């Protein structure tokens, strides 16, 4: 039987809090025996991007607005939902490729690309355009 454990955080839009949340999710993934590369690269980078996006773009850097992070971890997969208090956006409309020559020297524009590259799936939760769900299968 595969047991699943859940984490649920509500934090203000404070960028300094991201690293501690990420560390707790990584710790839970380690307990579920995720691959070393997933623990050191995929999970921390993709989750940092998702939470930062929620704070900076979703909540417009308004410290009074919260971000909720719900993570379900099992020996099969990690599923994280990151919810902000913004108006939502169309995830599928954000598809600029930061690796093209014209975009390579841009300072921004790599966050969603990294999320999509490092996770198995990145989607908006149906009916909730301000909730992004990231899924990573354990290797």
């Amino acid at each position: 039987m595969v047991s699943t454990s859940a984490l649920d955080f509500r934090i203000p839009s404070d960028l300094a809090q991201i690293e501690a949340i990420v560390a707790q999710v990584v710790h839970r993934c380690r307990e579920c025996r995720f691959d070393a590369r997933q623990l050191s690269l995929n999970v921390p980078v993709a989750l940092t991007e998702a939470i930062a996006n929620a704070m900076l773009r979703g909540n417009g850097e308004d410290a009074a607005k919260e971000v909720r992070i719900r993570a379900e971890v099992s020996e099969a997969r990690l599923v994280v939902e990151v919810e902000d208090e913004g108006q939502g956006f169309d995830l599928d409309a954000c598809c600029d490729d930061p690796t093209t020559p014209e975009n390579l020297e841009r300072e921004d524009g790599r966050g969603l690309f990294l999320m999509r590259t490092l996770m198995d799936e990145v989607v908006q939760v149906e009916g909730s355009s301000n909730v992004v769900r990231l899924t990573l299968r354990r290797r």
Partner: protein
Amino acid sequence: MTLDANLHGDVLVIALHGQLIVGNRQALKQRVLDDIEAGTRKVVVDFGNTGYIDSSGLGVLVSLAKRLRELGGDLRLANLNADLRTLFELTKLDSLFQIADSREQALASF
């Protein structure tokens, strides 16, 4: 993340301790911009004690390298672990930066 900065001749070497991410990237950016203002044109960032970088951290490195190149200098990277090298490859930023295996190699490359 904390950083140690030391001059080796005319090269500023910045050693990072911890992750370079959205919550702290401004500390690195401001430190290097201050040194550029004071005349520094050659910079090495040593990632020997860094586990991962996010897109904001990558963006700061791109921005600083661009500024230094405009002034005739450069920003070079050293001591990247396998994860960091993967990040630079995925984003194709490995084509934008000189990446050395060690701090000494990075210093010698100037």
